[in-house]
């Protein structure tokens, strides 16, 4: 479904040039849920932003269902891939009602039966029709993230890109959103790429995980490796150990990976 070859993104020029993503290769099958983990500055969000078209100056090839993406996207190609952002407090327009937020993509793509579609999608993400005319400040963090998921889902995309969808939420709300995401994937046969700094969250939702450091994919982990921590690369092992909780002895072995 998704094939990425030799993806590279460079910011700045001259001395201050930074290669945020270097030579990334990914391949995700239809209906699969794929994870990318890494620490801040590893380039994990940049990969998603290039795929969805927020950055257009990438190099390499990105193929969605066999079709290579161009720097300039057509409106119809954008319909197939939607993104959910990290911060539900920042990604919803504060002066638009839920109805406005959900209707806008339908207007852009010229889809009919807007009212039916909005009501149907609200039900699917576990919000009642009473939420339709509310403003974001009248919703809790979890409810806002449900609206953001509904906005991505309303165009009936095949691929959803999730950029840290639960890191701004409480653990109990995080569990609800993760459950919602995995239920939606099953009913709609969606393909997910999820980015997070939290190995446990990605491990819960995804069956394969790419570990990124300094713009490069250092290793791809399988389910079995997530369970056992039996990984090849030192950086992956360090990340895995750190996510097991505070351990004084293990900390002594930590080092910087340049």
């Amino acid at each position, binding site marked *: 479904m998704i094939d990425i070859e030799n993806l590279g993104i460079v910011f700045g020029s001259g001395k201050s040039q930074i290669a945020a993503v270097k030579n990334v290769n990914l391949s995700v099958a239809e209906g699969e849920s794929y994870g990318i983990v890494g620490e801040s500055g590893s380039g994990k969000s940049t990969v998603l932003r290039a795929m969805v078209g927020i950055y257009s100056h990438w190099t390499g090839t990105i193929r969605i269902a066999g079709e290579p993406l161009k720097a300039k996207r057509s409106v119809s190609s954008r319909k197939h891939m939607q993104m959910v952002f990290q911060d539900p407090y920042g990604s919803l327009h504060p002066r638009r009602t839920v109805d406005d937020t959900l209707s806008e993509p339908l207007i852009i793509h010229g889809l009919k039966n807007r009212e039916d579609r909005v009501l149907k999608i609200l039900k699917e993400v576990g919000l009642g029709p009473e939420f339709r005319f509310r403003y974001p400040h009248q919703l809790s963090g979890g409810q806002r993230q449900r609206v953001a998921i509904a906005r991505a889902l309303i165009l009936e995309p095949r691929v959803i890109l999730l950029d840290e969808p639960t890191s701004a939420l409480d653990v109990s709300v995080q*569990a609800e959103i993760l459950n919602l995401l995995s239920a939606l994937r099953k009913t709609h046969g969606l393909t997910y790429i999820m980015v997070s700094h939290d190995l446990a969250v990605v491990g819960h939702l995804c069956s394969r995980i790419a570990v990124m450091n300094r713009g490069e994919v250092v290793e791809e982990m399988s389910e079995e490796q997530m369970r056992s921590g039996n990984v090849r690369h030192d950086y992956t092992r360090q990340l*895995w150990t750190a996510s097991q909780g505070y351990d004084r002895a293990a*900390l002594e072995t930590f080092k910087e990976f340049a």
Partner: protein
Amino acid sequence: MNEIKMTGFQPDDPNEDPLISVRDLHVRFSTPKGPVHAVRGVSFDLGRERLGIVGESGSGKSQTGRALLRLTAGNGSIEASRMMFDGMDLMKAGAKTMRSIRGSQISMIMQDPKYSLNPVLTVGTQIAESCRRHENVSRPEARKRALAMLETVRIREPEKVYSLYPHQVSGGMGQRIMIAMMLITNPKVMIADEPTSALDVTVQMQVLSLLDDMVRERGMGLVLISHDLNLVSSFCDRVLVMYGGRIMETLDAKHLDRAQHPYTKGLLNCLPRLDGKHDDLPVLKRDPAWLDETQDIAGEAGGR
């Protein structure tokens, strides 16, 4: 437990007076939408140990920490039948006494170094300032102590970092600078309000190990406020679990699996685990009755 005993002090020594003793603490806010009762009768003691306070947003955990330093916002009021710090009654202390306690005897580390450092002063100046404000030392002496402190928090080139501005340092380094600033006065108690939530996991470990050293080497009391039950249980000696402004349960951090309260169990169960399984996570169900339970048991038995 064994680890701590080897280093010479015992958090459970009954002869030692606790550093902080709080009984029946209430924090109320008056807002345009009516009164908010944020902390409802919290009681605990803090010795020379690592105490964790865990809860979700709105559980009153941060307000509990702030009330200890009387940093509650202007529209709030604090009530407690007892709030003692090292023989001093914090409820009776005036504004001037509180100012001399804040920073020099009890310090607080906030969540995000980006917002707690002054952006137009170099970090070294800010650390030295905290030293000069509380102790009568000369500028060169303050600078020397600030440099030594930067080294203590494992910053490699203290001279270079001293003259950097906050926007020039990374999140992990910023948090170390905050810790340096808070430790330079040698406080007896440190309140850390989500000190590592904005940091990467490996950096998080490094910052925690610094705090750990301070507790062990200086016999400091540490209150770690966090939403991350797993992290707190792997780091602290004791954990208070808060919900709706009340302490639901006080636990020995090593025996989290023995949690009795349904809220604690719910919080533990809804965490995703690295077990390669993708089953639905159990969703936490809240019981309004938890807010009415008499929590005397936690106050008396759990306090020590």
